[in-house]
């Protein structure tokens, strides 16, 4: 068993309107930041969990995403796992 830090990036599906992104881009524009072609705003979830190994941590998170963390109709997700420490080390 180890502890893992899992980052889940949840982003609006391509093609869907992203009003938040639009508003931010507009604001950056009017603040004079040129050359920003696109802004999408999503969610970042940072979890800490215990699992046997990185693959298990990822698999479990994937399931959580499908069930809860991301809305399959409007959002995509991406998972990144990094090991924190073996559980004994705690």
């Amino acid at each position, binding site marked *: 068993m180890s502890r893992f830090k899992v980052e889940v990036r949840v982003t609006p599906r391509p093609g869907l309107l992203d*009003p*938040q992104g*639009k*508003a*931010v881009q*507009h*604001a950056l524009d009017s*603040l004079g930041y040129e050359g920003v072609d696109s802004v999408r*705003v999503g969610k970042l979830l940072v979890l800490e969990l215990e699992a046997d190994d990185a693959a298990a941590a990822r698999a479990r998170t994937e399931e959580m995403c499908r069930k809860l963390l991301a809305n399959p109709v409007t959002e995509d997700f991406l998972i990144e796992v990094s090991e924190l420490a073996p559980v004994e080390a705690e």
Partner: protein
Amino acid sequence: MRIAVITFPGSNCDHDCYRALKLLDGVEPEFRWHRDTDLGGVDAVLLPGGFSYGDYLRAGAIARFSPIMEAVKAFALDGGPVVGICNGFQVLCESGLLPGALLRNESLRFQSYPVHIRVETTATPFTSHYRKGQVLRIPIAHGEGNYHAPPEVLAELEGDDRIVFRYCTPDAGLAPEANPNGSAHHIAGIVNEARNVLGMMPHPERAVEELLGSTDGLGLFQSLVNHLSAGATP
């Protein structure tokens, strides 16, 4: 006396504020557009509620860069009275005119109903008409009203008598059930150090007529008018 009501794209309480101010003798409310750069010599400024720029990034985050906000800042630093209600409070925090930030309600839900707030200090241009400890019944309507500030800032607010309103029970008690958003120290409204900038989440402009359920908000505007007319007669 002339009071500016600022309209940002997405403001939706600007007309309500205008209407409330109109009820007071001698007050001439005037709208100012967010792109204006000049307040035009008004005596006070009101930042109304709503969803400036949709509140899409963070409530008030984008509005603070509106051209008019430069003028509002200068006006405030010069001692002019500024009131931010709801989204206006959020804009004031984002622009640094008030300390702290307003986070998502602890319930994660938008909450809209009349709450009770306790007047904590009458030593401001906005509350002289009230009694200290007086309980007002005023509607809230917000999703991000959970006041947050670092401990040292909260201590300073407490120590300097800068907490103007706290959420309370009908009989003036402080209780978690009476706090609609999880706000630190039950804070519903604060003033800046110079005491001329007020930010509050509840909507006093929605409590100025018996027909609509409460007139408890009138005192705030009356206090402001008294303050201004006292200053106007040297």
